[in-house]
């Protein structure tokens, strides 16, 4: 028997955008690094599908919340780096506060005894 992989959580609809924006708050990154960063910081609980990562990145770019440019990666290869724009920063703040409210509300309903 091989080691059992940690239980994965399915990403909720629409949360990937928020995660990407939050990740880019620390500085420009390319797609692969963004995915790894989310995985690492969620202690491998969240697995980002490549099939949804790139469409999400391009959608955010089309909306003007992130901008892309070609730069050399740490290993000297050309990579497409994404960074947060000013309007992306605003979007992140509003999305994050929405999410906070939502998760608090979920917690209150699901664990009423803890809330007291």
């Amino acid at each position, binding site marked *: 028997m091989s080691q059992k992989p940690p239980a994965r959580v399915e990403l909720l609809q629409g949360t990937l955008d928020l995660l990407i924006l939050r990740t880019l708050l620390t500085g420009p990154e390319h797609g692969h690094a963004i995915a790894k960063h989310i995985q690492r910081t969620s202690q491998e609980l969240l697995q980002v599908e490549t099939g949804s990562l*790139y469409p999400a990145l391009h959608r955010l770019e089309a909306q003007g919340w992130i901008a892309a440019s070609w730069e050399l990666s740490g290993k000297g*290869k050309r990579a497409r780096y994404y960074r947060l724009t000013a309007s992306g920063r605003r979007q992140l703040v509003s999305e994050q506060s929405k999410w906070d409210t939502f998760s608090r509300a979920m917690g209150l309903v699901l664990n009423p005894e803890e809330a007291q």
Partner: protein
Amino acid sequence: MRQFFRQLNWWIRRRRKEEELMEELQFHLSEEAEERQSESAARRELGNLALLQEATRAAWGWTFWERLVQDVRYAWRTMAANKAFTGLAILSLALGIGANTAIFSFMDSILLRSLPVRDPQALVRLSWHTRGHAVHGIEYHDSYVDDAKIGMTGGGFSYPAFELFGKNDSVFSSVFGYQGAGNLTLTALGQAELSSGEYVSGDYFRGLGVPPAAGRLIGPDDDHVGAPAVVAISFALSQKRFGGPERAAGQSILINDIPFTVAGVTPPEFFGADPELAPDFYLPMHTSLLLQAPNPRHPPASLYFAADYDWVDVMARLHPGVSLARAQATLAPQFRQFEATATTNDRNDLPALVMAPAAGGLDSLRRRYSKPLYLLMALVGLILAIACANIANLQLARVAVRRREMAVRLSMGAGRGRVIRQLLTESLLLAVLGGAAGVAFALWGIRVLTLLLGNGRENFTLRADLNWHVLAVAATLSLLTGILFGMAPALHATRVDLIPALKVSRTGERRSRSMGGVSLSRLLVVAQIAISLLILVAAGLFVRTLSNLQSIQLGFHRESVLTFALNARQAGHREPEIATFYNRLRKRFSQIPGVRSASLSEFALMGQGTMFTPVTVSGARNGGSEPGRRSAKILAVGAGFLSTMEIPILLGREIDERDLHDAPMVAVVSEEFARDHFGDRNPLGEHLRLPTDRCPKCEIEIVGVARDARYGRLKEDPDWVVYLPFGQPAWDPVSRMIYELRTSGNPQAYVHTVREVVHQEDARVPVADVKTQSALIDGMISREITFARLCTAFGILALLIACVGLYGTVAYNVARRVGEIGIRMALGARQGAVVWMVLREVLILTAAGLAISVPVVAVTSKFVASFLFEMKANDPMAMAAAVTILGTAAILAGYLPARRASRIDPMLALRHE
């Protein structure tokens, strides 16, 4: 917006974008492979590459555009595959949209656009209104409205009244007047030509707020006695005579042989306060003292003192913040008081002051063309509706044929919205192509309409053109029609019950229980027939009106008469020589080979104007006409006028060579005048007087009675007419005269000879207004002629479109029922029975359309009643003719497919299954 441009930018660089995506994914793969130490694991993790690319592309936001391009491309292919359908659809749309665009461009230029002056909303036009009628004066058609019920409304004021308005500066910031000066001989750079002038008061250009194109325009300092003679000329004249406004300013010219200086040029878009008149030049009002011929009995200066001679048209500019109602309330009592002391009118019927907004310039253009344009707009709107119904119908039929295609698409998972979108794209593409062709058609239509409405007038200033709001209307029309005729078939087509639709054979849904499409298309055909009848009845009414007008008994013979105007007074001829000059010319004209007789008169009998005045008759049964009751029309004529016009003499003699200016004063009266004044007594030898200030005591002997002939007005019964020899003291001294030449053959063939004769006698006299008497009469009924022609064309168009629709529907139904008809024939149905079976449907549809339309026509036709002459709006003849024509056309359109149905070979039809 930024998002849109980003998408557009990406779309333009889409190849590069694709490459970048590939490179980005490649980089991701290599990173992943390095991490996992396995290329295949990395690939597995990435999943379906094509799907990933497709999903990312969707994020680029082009899907909408990409699909649009796909749809348009597909629509284009479908259209190209059905050339007949496409051509027919685009043609009928182009005609519909083009006609609408052309008519709208005229409405735009007449009804919607303002005068090209500063703040036109503040301009008001002053006029007066009385309940009574004028008893003497000059009447040009359309100069004022004289109606038995509402009394008389007119525009002219006396000069003292004009000054009264000018003094009142509490409501107006400017008051200005103007009056047509008629055609004057203008000599510039050695060339003499007739040009139309307008007298304007000193404040005219300042009040209107018109800037000069060159030099300066006329100001208050130019408009008084003794000021240097200056003139402002129109932009067009400056180009024609001087080669540009800059060169014209400062030039010296002669007007009727009197030297003037060109002060400046008006801007190109300015055609005067009444754009219909469009004068060539503007003169300070007081220069009329220089230009008007010295007249011993009527010193021109009296124009400026007489309070009972109305001649100045008045406009004013309101102070900011002053309303029209306040201005009217302030000035009306003052005007009333002025009139009470000044006029000779009946004290109980003083003229009342009327003010109206003048932003669109004088209302004569509007009055003449607004109602016709609304009517034409309604008619072309109906035609567009028929065209739309037609295309909707053709689309429906085609959609029914494509039912299988739709079913395949829907069953393969295409969304209903997506299929509707595809069908709508096809409709819109048709509409856009039709609209583009329609604009081209409109360009042509505007030229034709300008010719028709202008009816040969040279200075016709009604210029319609395609501007952005006309184009916007055309575009909106196209899109609206596209959606209108595309939506119903699209909705209908996608409501498919998939399984039976997939099962049917290629010929169509033979056994389909759903008759929705068929009944919708029948509804459309019925609507088309109903609307066509409306247009056909309108055409019938106008054609009959025209023929009524053309068959009016004029009392004289209108064919083969050449008319032209000469003005010897402007060239310097004076009494008594001027009469001799005119008589000598008459003799020379009558000697031209081919001219049967020649004469002259102050006005042509029809198409120009009339003079009218009260007449007292000595020894008449009832003491003659009293002022205020009925006036007689006066026509000063030369020798042989009545015989030249072929007006028969009933008693006595006509006016001939012996009635010279110094001979005994005589008159020929009309039959009705004689009957009303003398009853059965012999009027010859009786005397009449004209109680005007010309020669109130002059006794005029009646020497003849002529049969009634129409003079001046075409549509009303003949009035009392008194013919006087020109030049005699009882009537005005002559200036401009109209010559009438009765010719054998085409009158226009003599124009050249006439010009030569006049040139030999006096080269300074220009020959003007050369026309035939018939053309003059046609000019009076130009609106009716235009209407009859246009509506006939519209009627034919509507009929054609409706028949195509009917034909298409029936042919489609026949094609759908090939199998059924085959079986019927195999079982022994005769050809005639099959024809009848198909025709019966046509007849039912037509009858349904007529049943709806006939009552509608009866109600709506009263809207055109004011355009008709000597007939009622619900004329049974026009209705019967329209129904017959429509019925015949419908049966013809239905017969072709019916005959084809009867020729179906039963064997072939059955094998078709």
